[in-house]
């Protein structure tokens, strides 16, 4: 069983969604949960961390989605199952985030502390069919909610589609 605090998991069955003012183009950052304890922290304490030194090109997002690695139990591993709305970002040294490890070699390094709202289950978990190595993936809410497998999350578009999207988003 996953170490989730039920009080911190949204009761709505899927993300179809919160206040009714979500944007299909809302950016989503898919992040990695290396082990179940990371999921517990995200759920119970409401945050996730990314070291600035290893931050991807795009960190900003309205939602975090969580990819669960092979360290999770069978039936939970190699998939994106949970999503949470981003509430804010702080830049803090690791020792402020994890005070139990003051002597960690990266204790003084700056990290993004990303505060999140309650975890929400995806109606359809997104599986990694090919078990490719996953790092961060920037995608959109619409893509996340319709994806069947991890490869569907990557935004691949021609220059023409990119331009069309830019016109659409900017309302020009």
């Amino acid at each position, binding site marked *: 069983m996953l170490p989730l605090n039920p009080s911190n998991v949204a009761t709505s069955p899927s993300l179809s969604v919160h206040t009714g003012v979500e944007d299909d183009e809302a950016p989503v950052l898919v992040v990695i949960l290396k082990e179940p304890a990371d999921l517990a922290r995200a759920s119970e304490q409401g945050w996730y961390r990314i070291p600035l030194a290893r931050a991807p090109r*795009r960190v900003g997002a*309205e939602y975090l989605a969580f990819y669960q690695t092979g360290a999770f139990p069978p039936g939970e591993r190699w998939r994106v199952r949970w999503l949470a709305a981003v509430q804010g970002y*702080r830049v803090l040294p690791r020792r402020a985030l994890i005070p139990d490890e003051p002597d960690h070699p990266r204790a003084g390094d700056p990290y993004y502390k990303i505060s999140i709202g309650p975890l929400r289950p995806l109606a359809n978990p997104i599986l990694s069919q090919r078990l490719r190595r996953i790092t961060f993936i920037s995608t959109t809410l619409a893509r996340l909610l319709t994806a069947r497998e991890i490869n569907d999350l990557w935004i691949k578009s021609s220059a023409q589609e990119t331009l069309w*999207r*830019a016109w659409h988003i900017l309302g020009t």
Partner: protein
Amino acid sequence: MRLGFAGRSFAHPELKSHDSRRWQNRPHLSVSLVYLRDMMVWLARAGITMYRMSSELAPYATHPSLPEFHNQVEECRSELAAVGRLVIAAGLRVSIHVGQHVVLSAPEPQLVARSSDEVCSTAALLDAMGLGAEAVLVSHIGGLYGDRDGSRERFTAAWSDLPAAARCRHVLENDDVCFSVEDTLLIHREIGVRLVFDRLHHRLNNPAGLGERDALAACLATWPPDVRPKVHFSSPRTEFNVDQRPAGVRPRIRAPRWHNHADYVNPFEFIDFVRQAEGLRPFDVMLEAGARDLALLRLRRDLVRYAPDLARRLEPQPAALREEA
């Protein structure tokens, strides 16, 4: 000469300029700052060294009915300082153009008070980023309200009442309908506010018939010697405007209106503009073009092709010229 663009990227439409969520979803300056950091990663890759940040970085920061949003600059002191260090390290010139709702010349005291709050909040944000005097906030004078002199006087009074920190950041731009360079110069002489020369607005609204070079020179002279002035440049849109209508209804087609910005910058107009400024002090140019960064990248290529001597003045120099050298 640095070239800049405003707001969202057309080359990377997935990059956001600010946290645009509605208040119900609790947007926050801290999220906008991470979007700004992501945008800076693209600017660095593209060699773009001037950028107009969104005026909504701190969402609802001065909204009178949403006090829970009013403390964002204070809440993000360390994050603002961190992003400011990135801006400085990248040699990026940033600015903010406050929205049209900021009207320091309004006859209604409440509207002036709200406008002053917004100017102060924006200046505080730039201050918290630790940026130098090149990082300015731009506004227009406001409406005429049927009394040009009265509006100018109200603006002058409201500006003079701003705290010194806000006045240091604030610069004034001539607009395309109400207040020309002649008006902004009158205000400058009275209170010393720096002036941004908007070239298209000057072509559209110049009742005094000031020559373009003279008007530009006068605006540049309002800046201190150690702060490089900036100007706004755009080409007028010459195409039909097509208004989409509901399904089944034919779109409405209207003739162009010259105050609309073209998607790209006409390079020949730009070259003529820069050539006629020969001998004046150096300045940076904020491009106001529909295609944003795509227009900037295209203009850079056009300058290399059609005016390589001017392209050599660009900061940074286009790669084609660096390789040639």
